[in-house]
Structure formats: structure tokens, C-alpha cells
């Protein structure tokens, strides 16, 4: 089938999409956007998190066809040219990135939290990121990064 979808502000089209393909597969393998990651492909790890019509979803759990006519924003669409989004900047600065495989999903999840809750407390940050697994960092520096990004967003 053919899928038309707006990705990071651009109108995109993919042909010969098999009905069983996920949005994650569509993005990674057909649209050349491998930033969203394939760590579990069953909605447990959050590393494939993207905005679908402005709502964060696990793109591995969305069928490619469900994205027809809708708007997707991936981790590749967060920076403005060379300028990183403040969340991305904070992740690098705080040492929240090690292997980085969880990073795209966490960056999108943290981005969503900070735009909803400008001054999140630690328990709120933890709840918001509870669907994103990280195996390298023990989460401490991810907490630092989100606190830093939220502080910068407020100032």
C-alpha cells in the first residue's frame, strides 16, 4: 500500500508498504529516518518514541498505515538546524548519553514533559520517564539533564 505522512514538517510518501509494518519500520527503513530506535519493538522500552499528531507514542506499536495523513515528529525534527533543542543540549552536557540507544526516545519523552510541566519535581520526572528504559546510565544523569533542560526552558 501507499502511505502519505507528514514527517518533521515534510510531506513524505512510501510505496509498497506491507500492512504489517510498523510506523517505526516505515520511518527507519523506508523514509531514511533511523533516529527512532528498535530496542524491543513491543512497547516496553520507549526508545522508538515519536510525536504522532503531537502526542508521544511508541512508534513500534503504531501500524504504518495508521499514520496515513497524519503528522509525525521524530527526534530528527527537534533541533533547529545546527542548534540543538535545549533538551538535547542538556542530555549531552549532563552526561546523560552513554551508548545513546535509549536517548532518542528519552529526549522526545523529556521534551514532551517540559512543554507540559515547566517546573517538574523529581517524582514527576520519574513518572514521565518511567516508560523509557536505559541500560547504561542508572538514570541519575538523565534526571540531571531533565532538571537542567527544565531550568533553562523557564529562564
Amino acid at each position, binding site marked *: 500500500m501507499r502511505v502519505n505522512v507528514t514527517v518533521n514538517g515534510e510531506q513524505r510518501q512510501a510505496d509498497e508498504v*506491507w500492512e*504489517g*509494518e510498523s510506523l517505526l519500520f516505515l520511518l*527507519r*527503513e523506508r523514509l*531514511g*529516518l*533511523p*533516529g*527512532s*530506535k*528498535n*530496542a*524491543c*519493538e*513491543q512497547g*516496553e*522500552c520507549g*526508545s522508538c518514541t515519536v510525536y504522532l499528531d503531537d502526542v508521544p507514542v511508541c512508534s513500534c506499536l503504531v501500524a504504518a498505515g495508521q499514520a496515513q495523513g497524519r503528522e509525525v515528529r*521524530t*527526534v*530528527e525534527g*527537534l*533541533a533547529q538546524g545546527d542548534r*540543538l533543542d535545549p533538551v*538535547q*543540549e542538556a*542530555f*549531552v*552536557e549532563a*552526561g546523560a*548519553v*552513554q*551508548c*545513546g*540507544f*535509549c*536517548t*532518542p526516545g528519552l*529526549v522526545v519523552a523529556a521534551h514532551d514533559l517540559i512543554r507540559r510541566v515547566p517546573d517538574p519535581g523529581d*517524582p514527576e*520526572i*520519574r*513518572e514521565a*520517564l*518511567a*516508560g*523509557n*528504559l*536505559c*541500560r*547504561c*546510565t*542508572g*538514570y*541519575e*544523569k*538523565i*534526571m540531571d539533564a531533565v532538571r537542567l533542560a527544565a531550568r533553562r526552558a523557564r529562564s
Partner: protein
Amino acid sequence: MSLTPAELTSSVSGGIGSSPQRPDGHLKVRGEFAYASDLWHEDMIWGATLRSPHPYARIVSVDLTEALKVPGVYAVLTHQDVPGRNLYGLEHKDQPVLAVDVVRYQGEPVALVGADHPETALRAMKRIEVEYEVLTPVVDMETATEDTPLHPGGNLVRHVPVRRGDQNASAEVVVTGRYEVGMQDQAFLGPESGLAVPAEDGGIDLYIATQWLHVDQAQVASALGLPLDKVRLTLSGVGGAFGGREDLSMQVHACLLALHTGKPTKMVYNREESFYGHVHRHPAVLHYEHGADRTGKLVYVKAKIYLDGGAYASSTSAVVANAATLGVGPYEVDNVTVDCWGVYTNNPPCGAMRGFGAVQAAFAYESQMDKLAEALAMDPVDVRIVNAMSEGSVMPTGQVVDSAAPVAQLLKLVKDKPLPPVSTTVDLRDMPGGVSNTTHGEGVVRGVGYAVGIKNVCFSEGYDDYSTARVRLQVINGEPAALAHTAACEVGQGLVTIMQQIVRTELGVQRVTILPMDTSIGNGGSTSASRQTYVTGGAMKAACAAVKEKLARLAAGRNTTDLVELLGGEVIDETVEWRHRATEPLDPVTGQGNAHVQYGFAAHRAVVDVDVELGLVKVVELDCAQDVGKALNPQAVQGQIQGGTAQGLGLAVMEEIQTADGKVRNPSFTDYLIPTVLDMPPMRIDVLELADPNAPYGVRGVGEPPTISSTPAIVAAIRAATGLALPRVPVRPEHITGT
């Protein structure tokens, strides 16, 4: 997207001792860092692996007819299509690339499919007909050596005895215990993946996520029947490793499909296949007896340790040596009788995981130290300090610990921290069970526990452990610029940052480019055993020294130290192989010998709240003190301590690959739980920098020690809260409730 990873030039503006940003950090937060699973090639096909559903079975027949008929299928391969040697392995070549007439574990690769779409490959795979004669699996590690032999030499992979002092010593106070450690998974997030591209010279270029390029290269070449120079590996982006990428997974398989079809072949495991596709941490059964005098001073330790290596040897031999030689922990004991056995069974193969043999032993010996404290009515930290080793102490192997071993100091550091207050207001998010609203504090008991651990750093037992580094220095655009190249795998830990820091410090240049890691340069050794900063760091420092020597020659008789003036149009290009000091094999009868290069130590204090009615545990705080010799990058050191501690927490309370008759029951992140941000508490960390005079910059391996002491500290805290013996990890709710 290019298959060859980007050269890393950005960001670093700090030398050693500072915490510059990772040179790959921007790529990673933008989603532009190319992991092995992201690779794409014009005209590529997808590979899939048919795996055995049985832990132990004879293969009666394999019929590929129907699979080959599926449109879009390019190849279906079996062991008959392996042109070279069909056996590989890190220490013993005992594992088939593709099974021949028997399968020894559930998930063992039997056949391969190459197709135009991953779904086509899966559908074709389901049409391969394999007839099995199912056999009774060997699953008990304690009796495996007397059971059906699974390999020609029987089921013993290795036995390491350690004998020191009086073998018949007796003591006033004796405590005994039998402990069990479940099978932990590395659970790196980036699945096994790679892309094999057939080359015009009949060779293959493999872009791969691994921990050791050169050992992969040798094994792939052997299986393909190709000379080494026809098998070229480039490290792709690696999504974590933790030991799980030391063994081959899809490397040979993708190359077989690519060479057979003439098409670039990509293979990516999904999470379920990943659980079958790599080795795990050895489950263990450990019998211990500690004898002490009335002051708590240890008189003797006796231990019998069984490690389940599963169906193939992998690195079991080295894991056995670690568990045996580190089996009494960071304590001085004059009389030691330790035996450790690693065995074959039909359980999933086990090999390297962070902590490598030391984790299993530490759970047992630290549980024993708590038991001893209880028997003596002593404080658990005091009994450890009474026995704590220090610089100059003698290991059970007879090896003298010849650099800092601040065991007592580490324990005091975590003990002296103020305890977190018990909250007076109820916030569900602080409760065991969290917002599941399982308690408002009723039935919740707090406990505090301590542990300390020891780990060897670098490869041991006489292994020729080295790394190769190349540094090129020249003037580019009026600026001195260095280029650094190794084959040492960056798996997420930040080795690329450390390499830039070292070159900047040694050569005084700002601009340092890290070339992609590949096999065009000599061996970098394994990214394991907490060794890369030590060994490849040492090699990089030595390569810089060789460059400086050339610079000194250019400077002779000239009155300038300015690099641009000195170099002019010259290019200095030096490659150096660097070795740490040699070690010795263990005596096969007594286990004596200077087998290890260096020892690392960490201590933890855990504070837990336990809902004793439901068996739910909330780790409230988890503090750590560790000696790192020298923190080349303090932020990365903290990251290692925090991440390693989290994996120890996982083993303490949730992580286990559960098997029944050799079959894995929970191969998914739905059923195999790893800690989330809700499970991992805040940590306070003390980092000591007591330089090791034998190591480059005084460094001490950092990555593994925090994983070792984290688990027993948490279990000790749960025991303190519940009064239960809890001889097994992970501790499950039913172990606490008794239901």
C-alpha cells in the same frame, strides 16, 4: 547514510581529569548516530535465523524445499553451506555456526534465510521443515558432570581449585550457607545487528556492533575459510554491550548469506531473538563455610562454587577462574579452600557479563559476612573492616596486592553518610508499589545493608593482553591537528572521549580526530574486564610518546616549541603496541600464581523499604564509594558507577532469565524486567583517586566493581528489614511473603 561511521572531531576541549562532552554526543541526541541496526545498502537483503525450539535434540532431517519456493527468497542455508570450519568459540571452539546433527540449547541456530523483506524471511523460515528427535536435557549444574555427556570431553568445562594455608583449620565461630544466583541478561538496548557487504576481491566487509573486532575477524575468517585480509570489520554504532557482545551472534551468518547471494545482507535481531542470540551471566550455586575467632577475624574460608555454562563454553573458563580467585572477597584469610566448577548443560549458553564471576561469588561471601556478624553480634561493617585487605595483603592465590586497596576506607565512607529520613507524609510515589496504590505505609519496614567487592582488571592468567594505537600529527590549515586510531570498541562507555583527552594532554593540540575503529589497524583487545582506559589508554599514551620523540628530534638545535613551526610540512605518524605487565597462569593443583594485573574495589550502602505483606521492595537510597586510581573523566566515572550499580540492583530484585527444563520462559522486556527510573534511587558517590603506580596515569578499572557490591548490599538491607535468610537472587516477592 554512509556505512563507515563518522570521524569524530567535535566537542572535546579538555584534557585528562576534566569532563569534556562526548564527541559523538551531538550525533546521538539528534538521532543521527549510525548504530549497526541503522545501516542500509542499495540492493541489500535481510537475513533471518531458524533456531531450535528444543534444549536438546537430535536433528533427523531438514527439508528446505518449501522455504525456497517463497517469492523474494534469495537463499536458505544450513551447515552444509559453511565453507570453513563450522565450529567457533572464544576459548574453546565447540559451538557450531549452524547445527549439524544435534542441538544443545533452545535457540541454537539451525538454518538461515536471506530475503527481500524481513517478513518474507520470517515466512520462509517457518516453511523450513526440521524433524527433531527430542532428548532429555541436562539442566542441573551440580550434577551435570555425572549426567549425559553433551560434548566429546564430558560436561566439565573447567575446575579451578585454590588452596592456601592449613586445609584443616578450625575455628570457634562457624557459619555456613548455600546461595543461588539466577541467570542475568546484559539487556543492552541495541539489538545484535550488522551489515555484510560482499567485496570484489572475494572477501567481505562487515559493519558490526561488537566488543572486540579482531577476535570476531579471526572467528569469521575461520568459518568462511577466508584469509584474515579478506575479512574486514568496521565497528558500527554499538547500543551497549556489558559482555553480551564478546561472543559471535549474527556475524558469520550475515557473511554467509552475503557471500552466497552476492548481495549486501543485513541482520537485526528483535528482542526475543536477542535473548536467544547472546550468552548470559552464569547462574551459580555456591556453598560456603566461614570460620572466625571471637573478634570476628576470619580463620578460614571454604567454598564450592558451581557455574552453569550452558550448552557451549564461551568464556566459562575465565569466569571460573575469577569466581575461584576472588571467591573470598576483599578480605585477608590465611586458610582458603575454594573449588569452582564451570559445566556444560542444555541451559542457555553463559559467558561474559559485567562483573564476570566476581558478581556470583560476592553475593555469597557478603551474605556470609553478614551471617558471621550476626553470629558474633557484631556490626556488619565492623566485621568487614576487621578482615579488610589493604595494600600488601596476600590474595588466596599468593599474589600480593601491590597498589591501593582501601577496603576499610570505602566501607567507612558509605557508613558515615547520614541516613535518609523516614518520610512523615505519605507520597505514594515513595512507597513500595508506587502509584499502584498498594500501601500507604502499613506493612512497610526499612532496612539498611552494606557490601564491598573486589574485581580483577584486564585479562589474567598469562594472557598476552595488549592494544594498538596510532597517532598522526601534522599541521592542517595553520593549526596542529592530531588523528587517533585504534580498533578498541566504543560501546557507549566513552572511550572516544578518553582517547581525545589523552592525545590533547600528551601533545597539547586542541584538534583531535578519532578515526572509526576497524581491523585495518592492529588488535585493540576486548572492551571488557574494565580494561580499555587502562590498556588502549596506555597504548594511546605510548603512541603520543613516540610522536613526542620525533618532535624532539625536529626540535633539536632549534629555538622553538611551537608545534606549527616545528612541524612545518612534516607528518609524524606513529603506531604502538602496548602491554600491561605480564601475569602468570594459576597452578592447576593449588591455584597459586600472580594471575591478575590489578584489583578494583567498591562498597555500597543500600537503604530499602519493604512492604513485608506484599513482598514489594523500594530501594530508597544506594550510596557507593569506589577507588578509581585516577578519574580521567570524572563525569564518565560517575556514569559507570551509576550504571553498574543499577545493573546490580536489577540482579538483586528483578532480573532473571527463568528456565524450565532448559527452556526460556521470559524472553521479552515484558517478562524480563530491568530497572526503570522509578526503581533506581538517588546515589551519593565518593570517588577515591589512589593512583596505581603500575598503570597509565594511575588508573584503576572502573566499570565492573560497582555492579558487584550493589546486589549484596541491597539483599542485606532486605534481610535487615524482614529477618529472612534470602539465599537467592533475584529476591522475588514470594521469597519475602513466603507464599
